[in-house]
C-alpha cells in the first residue's frame, strides 16, 4: 500500500505510474486534466503557436471534451504522437482519447481494439501535381514517382489504387509532411498524395499555389475521427456526444454569440433545451454536469465555427465545407438527435 503512496507522490509530480483504472472518466476527474493525443504538428489540425498553446481543428475537439468533463477547456495535456506511436499511446492508457486525423477502418476498430466515436472530418486521399505536367487524371500517372507520408493508410490505398488500375508507380515514402513538401517542390516526385485536406493546406503555403493542381480523383474514404479504447463505453459516450453536441449545435443554430442567452433559460425548441441542460437529465445520464454541453460549446463554438476558424475558407488553408457540410446543406455531417 505504501508503495502506492510513494508512487502516488511521483504521480503528483506527473512523472510516473498513474494507475489506470477501468473508468477513464474517474481518472480524468481525479487527475483534473484530460490527456489528449494529437499529431506532432499538422497545419490547421494541431500545432503549437509561438506561446506553446495548441490550436487547430483536432485540438478543438480535445478542448471541448475537457470543458464538458472538467468545465475547463485549458485542462488538457496535449500528448503529441506520431503515426507510429499513436495507437500504443492510446492502448497503454497514456492518453485518454486520440484526436489525431485517424482514419476509421475495420481493422483498427476490431483488431487494434479501439472505438471510433464518430467522424469529425470526412476526408479522402487525393493527388497534387504541378500544372506544368499536364496531367488531368490520376489514371494518367503511369510510371510516375509518388511522394507519400509513411505510417498511415495512405500507402495501402495507393498500392490498391495503382493495382486495380493496372498502372505502375514508384513510391517515395517520407516520414514527415515537411520533407514530403520539400521533395515535391524540388521535383523529386511528380505527385504528392495524402488526404485532400492536407493537400489543400500544403498547397496554400506554396510560393505559387496556382502552379499546382489537386486532381479530381479521390481514391479513398478517410473518415477521420476521435477514438478511445475499447471497453470503456461511458467514456466513449462522453466523447461521442460532445462531438455530436458540436454538430447538433450548428444544425440548430446555437453558436458562441447566442449560447449564453440560450442556456440561461429554456427556449421554445425542446432539443436545444435538452442539449443545453435547461430541460431533462441528459448530463446526468452521461455522468456529467447538466451544463456539460454549454461548457463544451463555449470553447470554440459549434462545429461550423470551429471549422471556419481553423481550416475554413477564410483561413490560409481555405478548405470548403464540401462533404463536411451539415446534412441539411447536402453534406455528411449528421448527428443523432438529443432525445
Amino acid at each position, binding site marked *: 500500500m*505504501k*508503495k*502506492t*503512496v*510513494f*508512487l*502516488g*507522490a*511521483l504521480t*503528483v*509530480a*506527473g*512523472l*510516473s*505510474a*498513474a*494507475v*489506470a*483504472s477501468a473508468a477513464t472518466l474517474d481518472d480524468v476527474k481525479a487527475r483534473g486534466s484530460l490527456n489528449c493525443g494529437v499529431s*506532432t*504538428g*499538422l*497545419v*490547421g489540425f*494541431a*500545432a*503549437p*503557436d*509561438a*506561446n*506553446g498553446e495548441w490550436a487547430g481543428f483536432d485540438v478543438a475537439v480535445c478542448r471541448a471534451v475537457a470543458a464538458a468533463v472538467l468545465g475547463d477547456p485549458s485542462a488538457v*495535456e*496535449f*500528448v*503529441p*504522437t*506520431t503515426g*507510429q*506511436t499513436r495507437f*500504443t*499511446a492510446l492502448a*497503454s*492508457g*497514456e492518453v485518454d482519447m486520440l484526436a489525431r486525423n485517424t482514419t476509421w477502418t475495420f481493422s483498427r476498430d476490431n483488431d487494434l481494439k479501439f472505438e471510433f466515436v464518430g467522424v469529425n472530418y470526412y476526408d479522402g486521399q487525393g493527388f497534387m501535381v504541378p500544372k506544368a505536367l499536364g496531367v488531368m487524371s490520376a489514371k494518367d500517372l503511369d510510371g510516375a514517382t509518388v511522394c507519400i507520408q509513411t505510417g498511415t493508410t495512405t500507402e495501402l490505398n495507393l498500392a490498391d489504387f495503382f493495382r486495380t488500375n493496372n498502372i505502375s508507380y514508384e513510391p517515395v515514402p517520407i*516520414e*514527415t*509532411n*515537411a520533407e514530403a*513538401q*520539400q521533395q515535391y517542390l524540388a521535383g523529386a516526385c511528380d505527385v504528392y498524395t495524402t488526404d485532400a485536406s492536407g493537400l489543400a*493546406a*500544403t498547397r*496554400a*503555403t*506554396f*510560393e505559387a499555389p496556382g502552379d499546382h493542381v489537386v486532381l479530381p480523383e479521390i481514391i479513398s474514404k478517410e473518415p477521420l475521427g476521435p477514438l478511445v479504447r475499447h471497453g470503456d463505453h461511458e467514456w466513449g459516450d462522453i466523447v461521442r456526444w460532445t462531438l455530436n453536441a458540436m454538430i447538433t449545435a450548428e444544425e440548430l443554430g446555437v453558436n458562441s454569440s447566442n449560447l449564453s442567452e440560450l442556456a440561461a433559460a429554456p427556449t421554445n425548441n425542446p432539443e436545444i433545451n435538452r442539449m443545453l441542460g435547461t430541460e431533462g437529465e441528459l448530463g446526468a445520464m452521461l455522468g456529467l454536469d447538466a451544463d456539460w454541453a454549454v461548457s463544451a460549446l463555449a470553447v470554440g463554438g459549434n462545429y461550423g465555427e470551429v471549422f471556419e476558424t481553423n481550416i475554413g475558407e477564410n*483561413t*490560409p*488553408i481555405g478548405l470548403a465545407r464540401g462533404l463536411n457540410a451539415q446534412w441539411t446543406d447536402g453534406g455528411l455531417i449528421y448527428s443523432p438527435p438529443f432525445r
Partner: protein
Amino acid sequence: MSDTNVSYVRKEMLAEAAPPVSEIGPVRWVRENLFSSPLNAILTIISLYVIYWVVGHVAPWTIGGIWGASSLTECREIRDATVGSDHGIACWSVLSHRWHQLLFGYYPSHLYWRPVLALLLFLAGLVPVLYPDTSRKLLIVSAIAPFACFWLLWGGSVWLPVSTALGFVVGYFAFGLATRLISPLAGILAAIILPLLYWYFIAGDLYAALADTVPLGIEFVQSRDFGGFMLSVVIGLSAIVLSLPLGILLALARQSDLFIIKTFAVVFIEVIRGVPLIVWLFTAQLLLNYFLPPGTNFDLTLRVIIMVTLFSAAYIAEVVRGGLAALPKGQYEGADSLGLNYWQSMRLIILPQALKISIPGIVNTFIGLFKDTTLVVFIGLFDPLGIASAVRATTEWNGIYWELFIFIGVMFFIACFSMGRYSLQLEKKLQREHR
C-alpha cells in the same frame, strides 16, 4: 705566420643581403606549404576551388537573410521588394520568432531561469569531480546538484527530491555502521537493502507528511513541456549521470571471475550495444508498458531517460573496462598484498585510477549520446528537430526548411565541439601525468 696579405681573400664582411623574395615571408610559406610538389599544388587548387564554390553559394543566401518578418509570406514579400523574387535568401526571422521554443520547448517563458540555473548548478557540481585539486568539501555540491537540478527543472514540492535523497543518506550511514559493527560484506548488503526498504516503506509517508506540514514548492512543470535543446541536455545529462554507477558495476561484473555474473554482464552489454538506439527508443515507446505491472504508465520522457540510461550504461561499461584494463597489473596485486578485500581494493585503489583514465572516454560517450538525443523525434518528443517540425506545422512558417536545420546544426556543433576539445585536452594532460 700565415700570409694574410692575399689579394683574393675578402677583408671586410659584405653587407647582409636580403634573402630572395621566394625564401621569405608569405611567399616562402605558400611555396613550401601549398605548392611543394605537383600533387600538393593540385590538392591546394582543388581545395581552394571547393572553398570558393561553397562560400560563393552559401554566403549571399546567409548574409542577406531577412530578420524582421513575422511569417514566411512576409519574408517573401520583403525579399521580392528588396532583391527580387528570383534570388533565394534566408529567412532568419523564424529564429527571432521562435528561438525560445528551439531552446526551451514549451517550458513556461517566465520560468526560463530555472533550466538555466539548473545547468549552471550541474556544471558547478561537475567542477570538484573533474578537477581533483579543488577542496574535497565541494563534493557535497556534486552530491546535492542532481537532486537540486531535478527540483529546479520539474518544480513541485521540494520534499520529493529531499525524501528521495534521504535514501542515499540512509545507505551511506548504513554502510558505515554495518561495516564497522559487523563486516564489510554486511556493510554492502545494508547499503543496498536499507535504502530500498526506506524508499519502499517510509519515503512515501515521509513525503506526504512533510508536504502536508510544510508545503514548500515552486511551480510544477510537466515534462511534456520540455523541448528543444533543453530536452536534449536533460536526456543526455541525466542518462550519463544515472548510467555511470550502472556502467561501473557492469564493467566490474564483466571483469569478475564469477561465471554467472560475468555472463549476465556480457549478455546485457552486447545486447544493448548490438541494437540501434532507435529500436530501443521504439521499445521504450511501444513496449515498456508491456513489461511493467498492468496499469503502470510512465511519463514518456522518463521512459526515454530510463532507456537511454540503460543504453549508455553499456557503452560506459566498455569505457570503464578499458580504464580497468589499462591499469598495470601491479596495482591489483599491490591492493591484494595489502590484504584489502575486493570492494576495498576497488574503491580505494583501482576505481579512482581507472575512472580518471576513463574520463575522456566518458565525455566522448556523452557527446555521442547528446547527438543521438535527436532520435527521440521519431517517438513524438519535441527535441530540436521535433520543435522544427512543429514550427513548420503552423500556418506562419509552413514551408521553411533550411534555416531551422542550420540553426540546430550550429548549436550542436558549438556544444559538441567544445566538449570534444575539453576531452582532448584532458587526454593530453593525463598522458603527461602518466609518463
